[in-house]
């Protein structure tokens, strides 16, 4: 959500703007009660750096970091995410379905908005329909793309209907076992009636139902959040409030953090990359985020087709020393990839069968390439092109990868630059890229399906390599119909096994979140989306 999204276009992350802890994964099931986090309730006001929100603080409009941090603390949805990316019921009583496609959602009784009006099924239905309607121009419209009736070309209502005061139904375009994992995302928050009558108040004094309320909002200066006395969900604030302090310069924020004038920094400035782990010690956060970078292998290139093609893909993958590149080129702000998703996603594991193809082994790589050459020779003067846009700094890592490929496989390897990102996207769309190309994916919500279907499913919007494998599609379909999210996760792992055999994309590394906090605060954890979990933070006065 940090990046403006275009429907059907793979999202690329440029900044190392993501922050995250929790790199272990695969522990808790999705609806367990959260383990009781350490730390007693305190009364200090926690300050965190932010940027001036671009839009009024509504869930439907806010898709950038500045407003996002506030929105996720002043609204409560059906579920919320813990630091491991698992979801737990917040307002939901139950989220049920017979077929994983038609869902019935029951919400708890007794919740109110901060203006005193009750939160009902209608609050959800109206808010979602409003955001999903094209002509309302909501930034988060895209996130309803799997709802029946959604369209990004014309106005059409999504299939969400209220049954009674506490129950509503949703129809999806296809079965999705992990539907409830989506619902903690801020696009799926309820809205009070006052929003539809007088949306202007959201530029000043937003009305929400979350653990915090906006106490005061001095534009360009500070957004003060205080605990909501009427909040009755599980995210009970353990501090006396949050001040989101607006900085125009990350360096200033970082210096304030070092001098204890700021408690939490969500994004370390690049000038401090080299030093922040020394500066902050164990208060530095540098762990994978929900962003995976890959090189996609185009199906339209003959050298990557058939058995020889598979061998070549493996050879290229094993020729890349990910450890070395992330350490040297990125200064440790990337983490070598071990799967097609991300370590912060619930259910992640680094030992999916076939994942050893991501291990660097120059000799094996050369052997695989030679084997492919014996089947279908390309000749010694073959040059592998690695394409990317050149308007941000990709040349350095492409050069490094190319050097490794050249050394290991004894073939040519060159950076193939497109001057702008737009030209690069167009070339990917019309399949004119002359070699393998950079691709990256940032998760919409913490589910494995979100990393697989949109990128590798046959005909999917971001499947720029034009990969198509019926066995993989079948596995995704099965997983979508699975009875429980856990079962679905197991099936998604099996789907990844197929990907490891076919390598439609070669996973490279995960973007890291780089953040930190001062000695003044305790119990700081970062969620799957790289934002700090603020209600848990403790600070004594």
């Amino acid at each position: 959500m940090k990046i403006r999204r275009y429907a059907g276009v793979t999202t690329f992350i440029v900044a190392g703007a993501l922050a995250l802890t929790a790199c272990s994964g695969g522990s808790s099931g999705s609806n367990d009660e959260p383990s009781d986090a350490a730390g007693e309730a305190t009364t200090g006001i926690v300050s965190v750096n932010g940027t001036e929100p671009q839009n009024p603080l509504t869930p439907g409009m806010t898709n950038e970091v500045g407003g996002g941090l506030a929105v996720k603390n002043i609204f409560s949805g059906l579920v919320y995410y813990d630091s491991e990316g698992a979801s737990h019921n917040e307002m939901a009583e139950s989220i049920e379905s017979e077929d994983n496609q038609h869902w019935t959602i029951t919400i708890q009784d007794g919740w109110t908005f901060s203006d005193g009006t009750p939160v009902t099924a209608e609050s959800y239905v109206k808010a979602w329909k409003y955001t999903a309607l094209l002509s309302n121009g909501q930034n988060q419209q895209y996130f309803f793309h799997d709802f029946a009736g959604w369209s990004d070309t014309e106005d059409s209502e999504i299939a969400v209907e209220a049954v009674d005061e506490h129950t509503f139904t949703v129809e999806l375009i296809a079965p999705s076992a992990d539907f409830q994992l989506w619902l903690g995302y801020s696009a799926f928050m309820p809205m009070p009636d006052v929003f539809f009558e007088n949306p202007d108040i959201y530029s000043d004094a937003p009305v929400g139902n979350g653990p915090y309320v906006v106490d005061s909002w001095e534009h360009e200066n500070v957004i003060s959040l205080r605990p909501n006395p009427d909040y009755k969900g599980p995210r009970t604030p353990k501090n006396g409030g949050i001040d989101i302090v607006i900085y125009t310069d990350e360096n200033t924020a970082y210096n304030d953090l070092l001098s204890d004038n700021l408690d939490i920094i969500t994004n370390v400035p690049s000038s401090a990359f080299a030093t922040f782990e020394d500066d902050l010690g164990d208060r530095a956060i540098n762990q994978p985020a929900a962003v995976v970078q890959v090189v996609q292998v185009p199906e339209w290139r003959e050298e990557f087709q058939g058995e020889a093609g598979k061998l070549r893909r493996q050879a290229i993958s094993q020729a890349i020393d990910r450890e070395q590149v992330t350490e040297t080129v990125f200064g440790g702000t990337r983490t070598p990839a071990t799967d097609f998703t991300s370590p912060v996603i619930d259910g992640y594991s680094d030992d999916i069968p076939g994942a050893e193809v991501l291990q660097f082994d120059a000799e094996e790589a050369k052997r695989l390439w030679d084997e492919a050459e014996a089947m279908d020779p390309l000749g010694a003067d073959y040059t592998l092109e690695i394409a990317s846009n050149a308007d941000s700094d990709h040349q350095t890592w492409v050069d490094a990868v190319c050097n490794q490929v050249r050394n290991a496989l004894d073939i040519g390897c060159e950076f193939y630059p497109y001057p702008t990102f737009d030209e690069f996207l167009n070339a990917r769309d019309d399949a004119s890229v002359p070699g393998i190309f950079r691709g990256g994916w940032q998760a919409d919500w913490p589910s494995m399906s979100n990393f697989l279907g949109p990128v590798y499913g046959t005909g999917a919007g971001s499947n720029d390599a034009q990969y198509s494998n019926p066995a993989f599609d079948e596995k995704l379909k099965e997983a979508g119909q699975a009875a429980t999210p856990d079962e679905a996760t197991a099936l998604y792992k099996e789907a990844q096994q197929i990907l490891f055999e076919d390598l439609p994309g070669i996973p490279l590394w995960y973007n890291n979140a780089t953040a930190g906090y001062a000695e003044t605060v305790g119990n700081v954890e970062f969620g799957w989306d790289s934002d700090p979990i603020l209600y848990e933070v403790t600070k004594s006065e």
Partner: protein
Amino acid sequence: MPENIDVTGARRDQPRRGQEHFVAPVDEGGLGAVDAVSTTQAPKSLWGDAWAHMRGNVLFWVAGAVIALVVVVAVAPGLFTSIGPRACDLSQSLSGPAAGHPFGFDFQGCDIYSRTVYGARASVVVGVLATAMVVVIGTIVGAIAGYFGGWFDTLLSRLTDIFFAVPLVLAAIVIMSLMSTRTSFTVALVLSLFGWPQIARITRGTVMSVKNNEFVTAARSLGMGRVGILLRHVLPNSTAPIIVYATVALGTFIVAEATLSYLGIGLPPSIVSWGGDISKAQNSIRVAPEILFYPAGGLALTVLGFIMMGDVVRDALDPKARKR
């Protein structure tokens, strides 16, 4: 007061009283021997004179040595290093000098010495190619304009002016960014496309002054054709300033190539070039500034060599501008 009246008030062009002659008669002054044509000595030519002058100039030998070295390195880089310029090992990133690697390693772990050696070729090839093309285009345009005059001159001179008004590097940036394939040849071609006006102007001026000489009139009165006179008599006597300018221009074309490669629109990364390496070294300037020094040093030395040589040649060929 009339100018030609001296302090004595007498007019200078009038003999002073009591003075019979201004100058002694030829046979009395002893100057006859000096003025006599030597029949035993080889005749002096412009080139012979220039060579004699250059030989005695230390700068000539210094510049000559630099250019010779650069050319040998460009032709046979394998003589100087056995390590490939693209054999890089990321684990050596930014390591200092080691045995066999006198300059250390760059960010990508490539041997800097090897890259500096191999970078010479791109510079020399682009410089020489561009200069050759510029000389050909410029001389043809300048000679036609200067020799035939009339509307040829008007047309070609205006054309020259138009190209002259476009800054070389700026135009090259625009054209190069449109090129889909980039090689040493395309870079040289683009540079010469906008580099020829200067040489055309110089040629035109020289041709115009040479064509009024007596030997041209003589050739014409003997019935020689206009084109023949231009090729046989006028052009050979106009080459000196062209050579001087070309030598200096070679240096500037090398700089222009490095500029383009530095901006990432000159030579592609598959061709090792000093400009490209300077650009890459810039990324690690805070951690390892010395990396920048080697490609920049190679570039500076080469350009200095050619510009010094141009200076020496100009001194030798143009006695009027000779430093005393």
